[in-house]
């Protein structure tokens, strides 16, 4: 991206008097605005609609289907409704912090998009510490949530904020440890470097390199769900106990910001897993045309990410919320030790086969396929047991 701007400057697109830094700053603002308004914001909205439709089907309901074709514009209606609502600040609240908190949460949601590897060329900044940057800025959410919980001056909000802090800080550890096996194999932290070390075929993906990375991928996904406050780890906003947790006192636009960040974070969760373990944008080299290849890579990346987003919706509709002590014991007694075992196992694996073991990938893919066949058989078993007629159309 920087090269492209440099070439534009060299071609004299902005005259010769403007300082280079000003043009860079201008491009940063323009691209941030494009990413935020053109990708992140609509994505968060559409996910809110898609999620409600997915839950509805799982619960034998229909879901929102009135606004626009199949309710597709429901997110716009909800957004307009929330923007039009009164922006209420409780009398006893710490007003400045209360007003600041939602923006911090949104900032933590927007910042990871800078290193989002959409395709081989389409990335705003390929930092050499890309994945480290990604995990650290997503964890900034905790500042906003704790601030919201404290500033609301409300017991529910405070408990929600404290829970969120405990949860996000704890789950950073297994998430970080689950990233290490990949870093061990590739020897780089750059998003593009990690993706380039994988191939388009599932056998070349890091999720199926060896058993340890497969477990690491699952642990990273679950830890990311916990960091994104998703069910079964949505304790900070547990409706049945805390009304809406840290967002209890919020209304209108500010409330919307919290939930936009939550839904938008789904994409970031999916993107981290996709880039690290599922081959990222890798697509077979079918043409030499750079633009066509980039478009194909963009589609590949988004399909993988959206599949993971769908899986997280599906998990949310399936699993009940865990208790706070179960949440902590899951993290410290299970995820952290298993992550260490993964790390050591991968280290031994890399020491034995420094260039990678080609057979390992095939064995892992075969085992995973067997697992999926078993899963499909269970699904068919449960469907037959329900004695209902087949209805596959997503539209009703």
């Amino acid at each position, binding site marked *: 991206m920087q090269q492209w701007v440099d070439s534009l400057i060299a071609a004299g697109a902005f005259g010769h008097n403007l300082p280079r830094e000003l043009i860079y700053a201008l491009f940063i603002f323009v691209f941030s605005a494009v990413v935020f308004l053109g990708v992140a914001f609509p994505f968060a909205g559409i996910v809110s609609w898609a999620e409600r439709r997915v839950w509805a*089907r*799982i619960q*034998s*309901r229909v879901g929102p289907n009135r606004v626009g074709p199949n309710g597709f514009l429901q997110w716009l209606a909800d957004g307009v409704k929330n923007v039009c609502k009164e922006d209420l600040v409780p009398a006893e609240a710490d007003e400045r912090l209360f007003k600041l908190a939602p923006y911090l949460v949104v900032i933590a949601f927007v910042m990871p998009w800078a290193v989002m590897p959409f395709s081989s060329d389409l990335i705003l900044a390929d930092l050499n510490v890309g994945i480290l940057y990604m995990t650290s800025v997503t964890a900034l959410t905790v500042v906003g949530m704790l601030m919201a919980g404290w500033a609301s001056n409300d017991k529910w909000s405070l408990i929600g904020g404290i829970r969120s802090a405990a949860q996000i800080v704890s789950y950073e550890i297994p998430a970080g440890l689950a990233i290490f096996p990949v870093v061990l194999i590739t020897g780089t932290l750059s998003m593009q470097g990690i993706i380039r070390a994988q191939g388009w075929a599932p056998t070349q993906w890091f999720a199926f390199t060896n058993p340890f990375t497969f477990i690491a991928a699952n642990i990273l996904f679950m830890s990311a769900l916990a960091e994104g406050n998703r069910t079964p780890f949505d304790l900070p906003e547990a409706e049945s106990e805390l009304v809406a947790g840290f967002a209890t006192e919020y209304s209108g636009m500010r409330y919307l910001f919290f939930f936009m960040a939550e839904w938008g974070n789904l994409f970031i969760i999916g993107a981290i897993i996709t880039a690290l373990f599922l081959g990222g944008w890798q697509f077979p080299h079918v043409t030499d045309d750079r633009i066509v290849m980039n478009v194909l890579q963009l589609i590949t990346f988004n399909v993988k990410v959206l599949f993971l987003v769908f899986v997280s919706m599906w998990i949310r509709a*399936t699993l009940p919320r865990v208790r706070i002590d179960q949440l902590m014991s899951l993290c410290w*007694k299970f995820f952290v030790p298993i992550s260490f075992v993964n790390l050591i196992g991968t280290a031994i694996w890399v020491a034995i086969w420094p260039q990678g073991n080609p057979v390992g990938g095939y064995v892992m893919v075969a085992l995973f396929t067997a697992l999926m066949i078993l899963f499909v058989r269970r699904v*068919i078993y449960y*469907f037959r047991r329900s004695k209902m007629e087949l*209805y596959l159309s997503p539209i009703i």
Partner: protein
Amino acid sequence: MGDVGSYFSDIKEAVTSIFEGMAVTASHFMRKPYTVQYPDRMPVRVQDTLPFRYRGILEVDMEICTGCLACERACPIDCIVIAVEKDKQTKQMLISQFDIDIAKCMYCGLCSEPCPTGSIHHTTEFEGADFSLESLMRRFIQDPVVAYKAKKGPETDPRIMPVLNRGMRYVDEWAQAGGEKPAAEEESA
């Protein structure tokens, strides 16, 4: 089984139960939702699916109203207002007003029971939402109507036929094999 054993059996139990749970919810993607999309996406109108004795909004058939005021007297909340006067020249009973305030009506059905001809009866209509209370006042008479006088003799007046048919349908519906018996047979008799 020691502590180590239970540690691993916990992991196994968690993984297998999540696996099974995901399979159960995945099977729901292949089922049809139960939701009835009232009111606009229905195969048939709800009114047509309601049982025959459903107590919906009241309706009066002015053709066969005798002007006996039985319903007005039966109404416990006085939502029926009837005005009957006698025409001096023709010596006929004239009904000049028959109003039912649906906003007050509590659908108890006490008015339709004493009616000698079945003129006042419930329909299966229930959607009474409106923008003003005034439009909930059902006025069944524009110009004064001559009250119906029951004929003597065995022949049935064709104007009462619909009411009788309605009653026969009631009998048919409940008298079918496997159908429930009406609970309040004596009351209506």
